[in-house]
């Protein structure tokens, strides 16, 4: 007699299909966030603050209250929201362009203040929504429409280490970098998200989960090739692991 062992989760807005490109890692991340929120029973007490990118301009991302922020500004909105509603689960979900380019001021100062929300960074090594342009997370040698000969340190500078820099601040309690490229990493991503949300509900300072996600369209690779590139190339610059954990 077969038992159902897996079903799609409530908060992952099931009434509409996702308009992401085939193989986009954002869809997996959004589903995992939804699964954890539903497992923790927090759907009706959650306010998501979404940055600007493919992950927020879908008609529907999550089936709970969300605020749509201006580009880079989600941590400022989340600061006010969490301080005014401290018993709610408040998280920002931002792309790498949103957070590490235009939004550096807001995330750094939220980290300095030790704001008690969670930031989820979707790192796909480019500005996906505009067409795959160079972002602070674009790797050296990576070709994009705005670095057509490949990112060159002399001309374009180096990829950011913003995540590592955030971990240095006392106001930050948890920093993890995970990926959704293969099944084991998908499970680790789910674990990191759950840990981050539990840390928030336990009253600790800023928790931060960076998720490496595939962008087949931006990278001009097939979905499966994109997953290989993540492991072979992207994770050399952005290694996975827990960068900071709360003291026991």
């Amino acid at each position: 007699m077969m038992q159902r062992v897996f079903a799609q989760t409530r908060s992952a807005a099931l009434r509409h299909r996702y308009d992401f490109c085939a193989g986009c890692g954002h869809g997996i991340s959004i589903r995992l966030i939804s699964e954890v929120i539903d497992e923790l029973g927090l759907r009706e007490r959650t306010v998501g603050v979404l940055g600007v990118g493919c992950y927020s301009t879908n008609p529907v991302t999550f089936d709970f209250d969300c605020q749509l922020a201006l580009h880079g500004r989600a941590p400022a909105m989340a600061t006010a929201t969490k301080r005014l509603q401290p018993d709610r689960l408040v998280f920002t979900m931002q792309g790498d362009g949103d957070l590490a380019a235009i939004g550096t001021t807001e995330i750094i100062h939220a980290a300095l203040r030790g704001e008690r929300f969670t930031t989820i960074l979707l790192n796909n090594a480019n500005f996906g929504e505009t067409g795959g342009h160079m972002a602070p997370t674009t790797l050296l040698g990576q070709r994009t429409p705005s670095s057509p000969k490949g990112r060159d340190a002399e001309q374009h500078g180096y990829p950011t280490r913003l995540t590592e820099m955030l971990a240095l601040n006392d106001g930050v309690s948890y920093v993890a970098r995970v990926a959704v490229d293969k099944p084991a990493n998908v499970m680790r991503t789910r674990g990191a998200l759950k840990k981050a949300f539990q840390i928030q509900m336990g009253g600790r300072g800023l928790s931060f989960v960076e998720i490496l996600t595939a962008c087949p369209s931006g990278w001009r690779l097939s979905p499966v090739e994109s997953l290989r590139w993540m492991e072979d190339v992207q994770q050399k610059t952005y290694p996975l692991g827990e960068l900071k954990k709360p003291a026991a």
Partner: protein
Amino acid sequence: MPATARAHGTIAIDPERCKGCDICVHYCPPKVLRLGPQRNTLNHRVVELFDPERCTGCEICAKVCPDMAITAVYRELRAS
């Protein structure tokens, strides 16, 4: 539980959500998935479970799918 047991499962696929990205096919351990000839209304080829006997219900396809196209996974234990 029998002394030796084998997992057997099946999945439910929402063809309108599938984009034929091939990721589940790539990661399926018993290799029982493939992109079928049918296309959905967005013109994507849709994944199909072509060898249901050998599906183990491991859930990997559902977990790596970016589009929530695998809407359910079922599993039972059989004597081998």
